[in-house]
């Protein structure tokens, strides 16, 4: 018995010592709760946003996009364009080195662009114009175009997936259908591969050799200054309430995308601030399957578009009024190509009009199968709203619940809904992914080669092609409006409004960079 008592006393003593151990927050360590798990480390191989964010930590880009959506040089120091817009010559900034100390050269840039150009839709489009690339000296590389195109810098400065990150040539020569296994970059942080535990944590340390640009940081452009020695991504903390508790107690410093239900609690928590560092935010979208009835009928699609007013979706899914806005544009509002052109069919519609359109379309009562993900809180409520609105318009609706993996599997199928296909799925995009006619996959109308939904419209494709070739900014804007107007007419998809998801952080964290995406340089912790 005395042994038991002695053992118990020892355990209690150790426990008390452990309890008394004050784990103070290290001001040089930033603890972030990202919006999802990091499972793929190759940001060219996948379009997942977590892989993109990982890429921004350890890689750099030739160009960046600032908070005003303007493309600015990043790794590039100067560049010239020939009078016929066919020869682009880029010179890299001095002092650029990979994490292993090897200087970045033009050959690295070319290999990286080539690999990215095999995976990314905009990159693939760019490559159709590229005749060849070369590097006449280590600091310079050139792109020779078969014909002029108007989006070289927009492509190289693309802020969202897939971002044309620059990797060492030996890494970039990894076949595009295989993942890289070497995570050396030239970015502001170094990835600590030995400390990476999938589903637990990812660790990045400051790249002491990184030479930032002298300008102030803005979006993914400007100087990438690092004041933190170590960044830890907490990949295990996924419960929304647990995230709020951890932030309130100071066990983490930043929650990247709190659940909308959490903001009320976060606002009241001591020492917590809400930061809107990405004012452009995201856009919801409802996509029609153009191959299968009833949405293989343009008039039926238009009726559905007319029924799907944006406000109900935003109210249901976001709920916090100051965080959402209607946007009568397929290209993000408040960006160069955002415009209400052609959107009347949706933005100036009402349920009565939708019902009339449906009646006039000859709709035969074919059920509309809507895919509803049950495990993705970010878009979970959208399908229910879509089902209700379409029913009110006169559609017969079959709302099918499943997990997200099943949704992404089914949406890739071109079969009829009864054989595992679909009619509508809903999703959300970050602003840069949809802000111009070339990045916006939903306005592509090349039939079965297009993004899921597979719309086919030669007029739309012709306009997009013209946009790709146009080098005059004013004409590009006019073309973008024409593309949007046509896309609304064809009813490629239904834009369902925009929202922001501000991060929550401890008040002792400052220096947040305004711009699209999740950016973790320039941050200070007092």
């Amino acid at each position, binding site marked *: 018995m005395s042994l038991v008592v002695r053992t118990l006393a020892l355990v209690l003593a150790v426990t008390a010592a452990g309890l008394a151990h004050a784990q103070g927050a290290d001001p040089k360590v930033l603890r972030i709760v990202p919006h999802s*798990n990091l499972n793929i480390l190759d940001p060219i191989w996948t379009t*997942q946003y977590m892989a993109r964010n990982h890429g921004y930590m350890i890689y750099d880009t030739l160009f960046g996009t600032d908070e005003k959506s303007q493309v600015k040089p990043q790794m590039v120091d100067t560049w010239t364009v020939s009078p016929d817009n066919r020869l682009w010559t880029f010179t890299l900034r001095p002092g650029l080195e990979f994490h292993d100390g090897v200087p970045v050269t033009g050959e690295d840039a070319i290999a990286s662009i080539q690999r990215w150009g095999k995976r990314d839709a905009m990159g693939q489009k760019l490559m159709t114009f590229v005749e060849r690339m070369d590097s006449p000296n280590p600091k310079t590389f050139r792109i020779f175009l078969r014909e002029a195109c108007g989006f070289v810098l927009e492509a190289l400065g693309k802020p969202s997936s897939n971002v044309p990150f620059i990797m060492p040539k030996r890494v970039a020569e990894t076949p595009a259908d295989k993942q890289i296994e070497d995570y050396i970059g030239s970015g502001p942080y170094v990835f600590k591969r030995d400390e990476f535990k*999938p589903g637990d944590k990812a660790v990045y340390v400051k790249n002491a050799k990184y030479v930032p640009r002298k300008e102030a940081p803005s979006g993914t452009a400007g100087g990438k200054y690092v004041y933190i020695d170590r960044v830890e991504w*907490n990949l295990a903390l996924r419960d929304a309430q647990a995230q709020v*508790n951890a932030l309130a107690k100071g066990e983490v410093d930043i929650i990247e995308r709190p659940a909308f239900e959490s903001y009320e609690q976060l606002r009241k928590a001591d020492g917590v601030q809400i930061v809107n560092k990405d004012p452009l935010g995201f856009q919801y979208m409802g996509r029609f399957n153009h191959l299968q009835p009833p949405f293989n009928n343009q008039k039926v699609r238009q009726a559905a578009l007319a029924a799907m007013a944006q406000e109900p979706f935003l109210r249901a899914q976001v709920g916090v009024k100051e965080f959402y806005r209607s946007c009568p544009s397929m290209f993000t509002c408040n960006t160069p190509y955002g415009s209400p052109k052609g959107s009347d069919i949706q933005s100036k519609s009402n349920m009565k009009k939708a019902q009339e359109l449906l009646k006039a379309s000859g709709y035969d009562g074919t059920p509309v199968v809507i895919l509803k993900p049950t495990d993705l809180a970010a878009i979970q409520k959208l399908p229910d709203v879509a089902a209700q609105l379409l029913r009110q318009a006169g559609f017969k609706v079959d709302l099918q619940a499943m997990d997200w993996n099943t949704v*992404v*599997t089914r949406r890739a199928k071109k079969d009829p809904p009864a054989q595992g296909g679909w009619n509508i799925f809903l999703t959300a995009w970050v602003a840069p*992914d949809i802000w111009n006619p070339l990045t916006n996959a939903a306005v592509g109308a090349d039939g079965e080669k297009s*993004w899921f939904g597979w719309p086919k419209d030669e007029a739309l494709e012709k306009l997009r092609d013209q946009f790709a070739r146009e080098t005059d900014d004013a004409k590009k804007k006019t073309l973008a409006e024409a593309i949007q107007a046509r896309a609304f007419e064809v009813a490629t998809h239904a834009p369902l409004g925009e929202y922001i998801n501000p991060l929550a952080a401890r008040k002792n964290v400052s220096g947040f960079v305004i711009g699209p995406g999740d950016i973790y340089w320039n941050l200070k912790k007092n």
Partner: protein
Amino acid sequence: MWAFLARRLAATIPVLLVVAVLVFLMLRLTPGDPAAILAGDAATTEQIAAIRASLGLDRPLPAQFAIWFANLLAGDLGESFYFRMKVTALIGQRLEPTLALATLTIVIAVAVAVPLGVAAAWRFGGWLDRALMGFSVLGFSVPVFVLAYILIYVVSLKLGWLPVQGYQRLADGFGPFLRHLILPAITLSVVYIALIARVTRASVLEALGEDYIRTARAKGLPELRVLVRHALANAAVPIATVIGIGVALLIGGVVVTESVYAIPGLGRLTVDAVLARDFPTIQGVILFFSFAYVLVNLVVDLSYVFFDPRIRY
């Protein structure tokens, strides 16, 4: 004894074989495509097909099974589609948090439940007995996450005694390791306390009705010795069985607790793998669980020898 051990271990082989075949088939028959998730939202159908081919998922099912099984026989559980890590390494990383949580939970549960159960049986029908019965109903009824949030609110947020979340590895220090485990272990232990206490009570109650207990009391033995050395010792077999079941369930991962407390354990790994259709990881983890269950049952069966000298293998 050794022959018994050898027989039991040999018996695990057909069990694991059946599990392997069933899991493999069930995964391939359920809807979902790992290639679609890997590719990301903006991928085209062609890109998804290319990824599927690179993972070998476009091969006929028998071919996929043959490859996987051949690797399995060589001790290779395969590589995760997502993490590009060996499944054995992934399981290895998650093993410490899971085992640590399971161990502390069971230690707390047994340390609290067994004395409570014995006391309740000793004072059958009294206030302690009734209180225990009431507590066990609560213990079974209250969802784990509700209890977790209550404990976090009171102990972590209001009193500030313990962390809200996270897991610290033992290598980082015993104190922090224990601090992070106490609340999750207490949360989980409640239902096991309820279960083990009830079984203990019933089992000890039955033992207390035996003649040898009357004899022990008649001989003038102290009541505590009667309860522990005679009643509890003879009631131990069913209690050990329930504890063994509890250990097996805990090793299988407790995903709700792991999610609330952000513990990177096997439960979370399994759920993430299932949602992502990470076939190699799901297959590997389920095989590991099957083997663990078999092993735990074997240990429990062997423990009977210590509790009941009449049992010999």
